[in-house]
């Protein structure tokens, strides 16, 4: 049972890692499950699975992209609420409800969204530059 579960956990690792180390991990499980305990090895495989997908496989790039999108939406949304048609005095403020959105409001939405995108790009570029420099230094020692 635990062997099947361990095999499943190894199989769920990213293909590049699984191809390189999967067989060895299974072999070690067979050798060490009695001395180290199957439960401990299963927990280790589970944490390895999370680490491989979240940190090593590049899925973090999707997480960063989602965070970037969230920043854009938040900045665009706040800007829109503060200065857009729903803000006090804006065309969709309670006293103006039902009136059409003015072109000026649309421009404000665009400006705030573009600001959000710009800020995200700057933050990501700065972070990626530092990250790449550190990684290159480490690799080319």
């Amino acid at each position, binding site marked *: 049972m635990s062997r099947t579960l361990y095999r499943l956990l190894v199989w769920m690792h990213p293909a590049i*890692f699984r191809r*390189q*180390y999967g*067989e*060895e*991990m*299974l*072999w*070690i*499980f067979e*050798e*060490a499950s009695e001395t*180290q305990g199957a439960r*401990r*090895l299963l*927990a*280790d*495989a*589970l*944490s*390895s*699975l999370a*680490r*491989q997908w979240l940190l*090593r496989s590049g899925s973090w790039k999707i997480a960063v992209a989602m965070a970037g999108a969230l920043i854009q939406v938040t900045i665009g949304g706040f800007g829109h609420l503060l200065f857009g048609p729903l803000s006090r005095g804006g065309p969709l403020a309670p006293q103006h409800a039902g009136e059409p959105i003015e072109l000026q409001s649309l421009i404000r939405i665009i400006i705030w969204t573009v600001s959000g995108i710009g800020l995200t790009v700057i933050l990501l570029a700065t972070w990626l530059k530092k990250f790449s420099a*550190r990684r290159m*230094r*480490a*690799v080319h*020692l």
Partner: protein
Amino acid sequence: METDYSELLPLAPATLHILLSLAGEDRHGYGIMQEVARQSEGKYKLGPGTLYDNLQRLMDQGMVEEAKRRPAGEDPRRRYYRLTPVGRGLLVSEISRLEDVIHEAKLRLRLPETRRA
């Protein structure tokens, strides 16, 4: 010219133990796990997931490489790993850093010099 490893220090415990286990001889994955357990007197046990995650990173960084030669009659699943000169240099730098830390700690805490049996 001496290489500066300070960017990569301090090493994580798993990395330090893996490099140390390979300092004496080439080992396969399970051999590394056993050697780490022996060195730490059973207090630090690496799981295969943690081991291969670290090995993958160390191989990417050129600290460890796969050994071409393996003992005859070995299980083909057993791949042997060895420390590269760069990995050895990194390990030496970390040990030197740790010696400085221990020296400083003994001075501050006024501990006597101790030797392991």
